[in-house]
């Protein structure tokens, strides 16, 4: 079956600076791809090309089966976009914003009004519906922005850093909405600097850096790529910690450091072996758990720099 988003060799330069150096992507219908990358990686540029706001210098991109250059109008009819910059009318109320956008999406007036009420309720903006957007908080604006991109239930949705600047509760709300949309068959391309976000939502992550895709896969594949899981052990006191590190031939723990050991695990049986060794020598760990590497580790390994937006 045809992919909802198909990108081959996408290139774009501003003057002498090449900001996209050949991007390849494909997103299956009804799935989500997270473009993960630091500031200036080229995420927004990619989204702007895919939403017909910018023409590429080279490469091909098809969205919902339409070419973004040759069939721009058809693409516009099948996408919703929430850009990085909030795009709402400050001098209209939330309700008026949604009705206006509904009319511009070619809904009849009655349908546009019904849809506006529905979206206000869904995004928890009913109480503020008749206030000018000028008086909204940043999070409310962002939610309205997102609601606007859903006015016509587009089959493909672009979200450029949709949760930047939101508090944890609002962020959770956006994630919830995105999951609902995915469940209803919408295809989502989302950009983020937050690894947690990609981890929460993405079936598929493409790590962008310097205008290239430097890695691609499911969050767990990417983590596996970076390294093994680790057994994390904590101990009640220094004596137990020292004994354990002797038994398990771990690195000498730092004096005054945390009462913890972190050991690489290749197979499940390694965990059993280590726990058996500890039991034989009479050392009891306080707590234990097996940790996957985080996407932060992935990021560091792939791009050679810590993430742009760690929190």
């Amino acid at each position, binding site marked *: 079956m045809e992919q909802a988003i198909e990108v081959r060799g996408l290139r774009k330069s501003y003057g002498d600076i090449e900001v996209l150096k050949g991007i390849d992507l494909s997103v299956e219908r009804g799935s989500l791809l997270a473009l993960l990358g630091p500031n200036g990686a080229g995420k927004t540029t990619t989204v702007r090309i895919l939403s017909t706001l910018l023409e590429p210098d080279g490469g091909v991109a098809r969205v919902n089966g339409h070419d973004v250059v040759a069939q721009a109008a058809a693409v516009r009819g099948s996408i919703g976009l929430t*850009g990085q*910059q909030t795009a709402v009318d400050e001098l209209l109320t939330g309700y008026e914003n949604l009705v206006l956008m509904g009319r511009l999406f070619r809904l009849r007036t009655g349908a546009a009004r019904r849809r506006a009420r529905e979206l206000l309720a869904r995004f928890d903006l009913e109480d503020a519906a008749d206030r000018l957007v000028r008086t909204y908080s940043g999070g409310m604006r962002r939610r309205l922005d997102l609601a606007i991109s859903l006015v016509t239930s587009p089959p493909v949705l672009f979200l450029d850093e949709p949760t930047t600047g939101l508090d944890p509760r609002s962020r959770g709300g956006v994630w919830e909405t995105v999951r609902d949309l995915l469940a209803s068959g919408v295809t989502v391309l989302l950009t983020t600097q937050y690894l947690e976000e990609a981890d929460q939502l993405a079936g598929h992550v493409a790590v962008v850096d310097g205008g290239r895709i430097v890695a691609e896969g499911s969050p767990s594949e990417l983590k596996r790529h970076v390294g093994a899981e680790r057994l994390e052990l904590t101990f009640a006191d220094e004596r137990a910690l020292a004994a354990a590190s002797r038994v398990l031939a771990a690195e000498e723990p730092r004096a005054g450091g945390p009462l913890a050991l972190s050991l690489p695990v290749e197979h499940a049986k390694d965990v059993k072996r280590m726990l058996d060794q500890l039991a034989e020598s009479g050392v009891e760990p306080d707590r234990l758990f097996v940790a996957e590497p985080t996407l932060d580790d992935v990021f560091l390994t792939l791009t050679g720099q810590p993430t742009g937006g760690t929190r």
Partner: protein
Amino acid sequence: MTTVTPPAPAGPSAYWALNDSRALIGRCLRHIARSPEQLMLMFFLPIMLLLMFRYLFGGAISTGGVSYVNYVLAGIITVAVTFNATATSVAVCSDLQEGIVERFRSMPVRGSAVLVGHVVAALVRHVISIAVMIGVGFLVGFRPQAGFGQWCAALGLLLLFATAVSWIAAVLGIVAKTVEGASGLSMPLVFIPYVGSALVPPSTMPDGLRAFAENQPVSHVADAVRALFTGAPVGDAAWLAVVWWAGIIVVVVPLAGRLFRRRAAG
């Protein structure tokens, strides 16, 4: 959650152009009452100017046979039109800056509809402002001699002038990089009527300045409208005004469209 599917964008494209324009005109009309700056430029500043010229300077200005207030009202109205134009420049510029135009571009909206929305709303502001100025004029002694036909001609001419000025203002708003820049760029527009016959008869000006003042296009509008109001012979002013401002519209409208598309795509 229900699913909303828009009607297929079939149908004549003129229909959708009209639909988009109507929606965007409505948007800009709502802005008027909510933006103190626009209200100030529509009412407060031109009324202050009228009162100032009527009561402070008017006594010292000789206008031949007509009373000063009958002389100056047409000119004050041309100034009011250029005041209002400043607001149009600012509104167009801030749309381009705030990302909302970018959103419209990702939708099946005609780019020109955004400009049409601004210009039509500007015309509504001009009409209200002109009506209020004429009303205040009556309160401070304006006594026109115009018959029905002359009123229609005068208002028609002012409308043509206001349309052209609104498109010029839109161009300035597109060209400006910032909102402050937009109001700066439209300053010359506000000053042009002063260097003309709008507020004082140019007969006392030095020769070079006087030649400019008598022949620049805002003076033609002020002269023609004044003559129509006071029942004096209109002379060449009316047709000169029509040729100038219709010509300006023919040049500026496509220019605005082209600049807008280019700026929005950048």
